[in-house]
């Protein structure tokens, strides 16, 4: 947790609900399981590339954290990622010179979609589940409509660099993917934002919006900003994902559920008011590690969702059973 430590507690150490301990424990066990099966996973090059490829979902989880902790949902991020990747390919159309303008445009688009989500939710009082579900339908429909059902154009090599290439010849580590650098920078920024006055009051908004309002917090503004953060995170994720794997309509499919699951795994309460952004990001990392683990252990492709579902239910049930009753 990120509260400033006060005087030492005389009582026994408590596992605080929303703390990092449960997710660290799960992550630890998964790491041990990987180590048993695939010790060379921890060799710097493969670890680096794993972290690099996990960057998009971790960033999405960070963005989703802000929305969820403020008491809302963002179901539109997956479709936003897809839309952004398709837009990028069509606008760049293989021209290296268009890379940077398009990157800026995507970030702007992400922020704009977040802003619209936020304003509809806060000003028109539409539950965010519905707002972002509607936005999901609109974005998917619009981008398919705009591109006649198949992505067009191509991403430039410069654009793809962010998600695909790495800084080579780094001492000790070998190569550091650009995506990892982006992740480290934005992850640190997310932690800073979460610990800032905005971040702390955002949690209060999720916990009790009335009290927050009466304490001078502009609740609607905070929540809208949270949606904007989520939209921008989706834009960055789209840039990294588009870079990593190229353009496709599948680019963002299901990412909203993955991000929400990751956030919940990380100890953030759906409905708001509790949790940390670090936990959310660790939750995403855990989810990615679980997928890699299933590759290493050769879990049959068709059975994977069962394993994933069971582990999520178990983890969430166990962490829920530990928190004291209301």
């Amino acid at each position, binding site marked *: 947790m990120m509260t400033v430590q006060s005087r030492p507690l005389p009582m026994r150490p408590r596992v605080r609900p929303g703390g990092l301990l449960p997710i660290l424990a799960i992550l630890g066990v998964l790491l041990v399981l990987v180590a048993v099966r695939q010790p060379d996973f921890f060799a710097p090059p493969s670890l680096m590339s794993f972290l690099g490829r996990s960057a998009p979902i971790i960033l999405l989880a960070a963005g989703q954290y802000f929305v969820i902790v403020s008491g809302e949902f963002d179901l539109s991020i997956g479709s936003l990622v897809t839309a952004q990747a398709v837009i990028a390919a069509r606008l760049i159309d293989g021209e290296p010179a268009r890379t940077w303008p398009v990157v800026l445009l995507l970030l702007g688009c992400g922020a704009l979609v977040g802003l619209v989500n936020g304003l509809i939710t806060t000003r028109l009082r539409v539950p965010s589940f519905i707002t972002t579900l509607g936005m999901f*339908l609109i974005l998917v*429909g619009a981008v398919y409509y705009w591109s006649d059902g198949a992505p067009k154009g191509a991403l430039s090599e410069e654009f793809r660099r962010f998600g695909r290439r790495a800084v080579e010849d780094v001492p000790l580590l070998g190569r550091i993917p650009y995506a990892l650098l982006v992740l480290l920078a934005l992850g640190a920024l997310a932690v800073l934002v979460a610990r800032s006055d905005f971040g702390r009051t955002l949690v209060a908004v999720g916990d009790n919006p009335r009290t927050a309002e009466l304490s001078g917090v502009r609740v609607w503004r905070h929540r809208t900003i949270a949606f904007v953060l989520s939209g921008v995170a989706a834009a960055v994720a789209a840039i990294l994902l588009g870079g990593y794997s190229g353009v496709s309509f599948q680019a963002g499919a299901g990412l909203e559920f993955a991000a929400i699951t990751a956030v919940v795994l990380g100890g953030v309460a759906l409905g708001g008011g509790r949790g940390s952004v670090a936990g959310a990001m660790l939750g995403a990392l855990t989810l990615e590690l679980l997928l890699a683990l299933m590759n290493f252990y050769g879990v049959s492709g068709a059975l994977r969702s069962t394993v994933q579902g069971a582990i999520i239910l178990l983890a969430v049930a166990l962490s829920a059973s530990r928190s004291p009753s209301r």
Partner: protein
Amino acid sequence: MSAQSLLPARWPVPGVFVALVLTVAIGGLVVAVDGGQLFHQATVVSLLHVAAGLGLVAVGQTLVIVGGSLDLSVAYLISLSTLVAAETMNGSDGAVLPAVGLALTVSAGVGLLNGLLVTRFRINAFIATLGVGLLLKGYLDNGYDGPAGVTAPTLVRTLGYQRIGPVPLSFLLLVAVTAAAWFTLARTRFGHHLVAVGGDPEVARLSGVRNDRVLVTAHVLCSLCAGLAGIYLASRLGAGAPRVGTEGLYDLESIAAVVLGGTALAGGRGGVAGTVGGVLLLASIDAIFNQLEVDAFFKQVIRGAVIIAAVAVYARRALRRGRS
């Protein structure tokens, strides 16, 4: 509109029926100008068939949403139910009853699991039912390469294709299920308790309502409705189909229909009559755009906008009512 008489007298007519009438009127006009015919028998039959499938799921979904919960596993459950039903029947008319029984039992079991995860294990309904959905998906992916089983011909002939005038039997089933659900909400203790749990769980608990039992029951009922939708789809398709639920987006569409019908997503307010209105509205939009050959993707944009706009209107109304 027959559904209107089902509404408790003290509630205003849900806006969705107004929207439905307007949509059908304007849509019919536009289609007519375009040279088509919206009220052609074949079109109406198609519309009602689509409405019946989604409607059965959405009525069940209404029950859990009114209770303050949610079910994202219905899409997978529907597929599972089609398979259980069709495989058990395997083309034999004699096996209809055991097949229907088995499909509903399996559905009830899934509902029970959902309910217990939400109540006993205190997992947020969103995550719990998402997780159960994943479990079912794994089972379906692993066990089925494609359609399996054969639905009994009698069932195909009756539930799948039989109609009375322009009204398919399946739609009558929906009407019956809706009436039963309305009756349950309005006239049984369980119904009263469910609305109370959705409105304020603490108040319900302190009033002696057994919240857990009520919510588990609601989840079981919701899953039974999904199972019934599966049986209908199996009769319609003639076989069990492992992807029919997910392809039909029954999870999100059913939730959309429920909120279009004026039920509050947070629970405690709403009803099944509105939900059927929501389903009919979605189906009408579909039918109109089909007639006009509007691009399916564009239709989706419209659909998203309609859902947001409708809920915004409800929110305004609720706000005004809260002020009065």
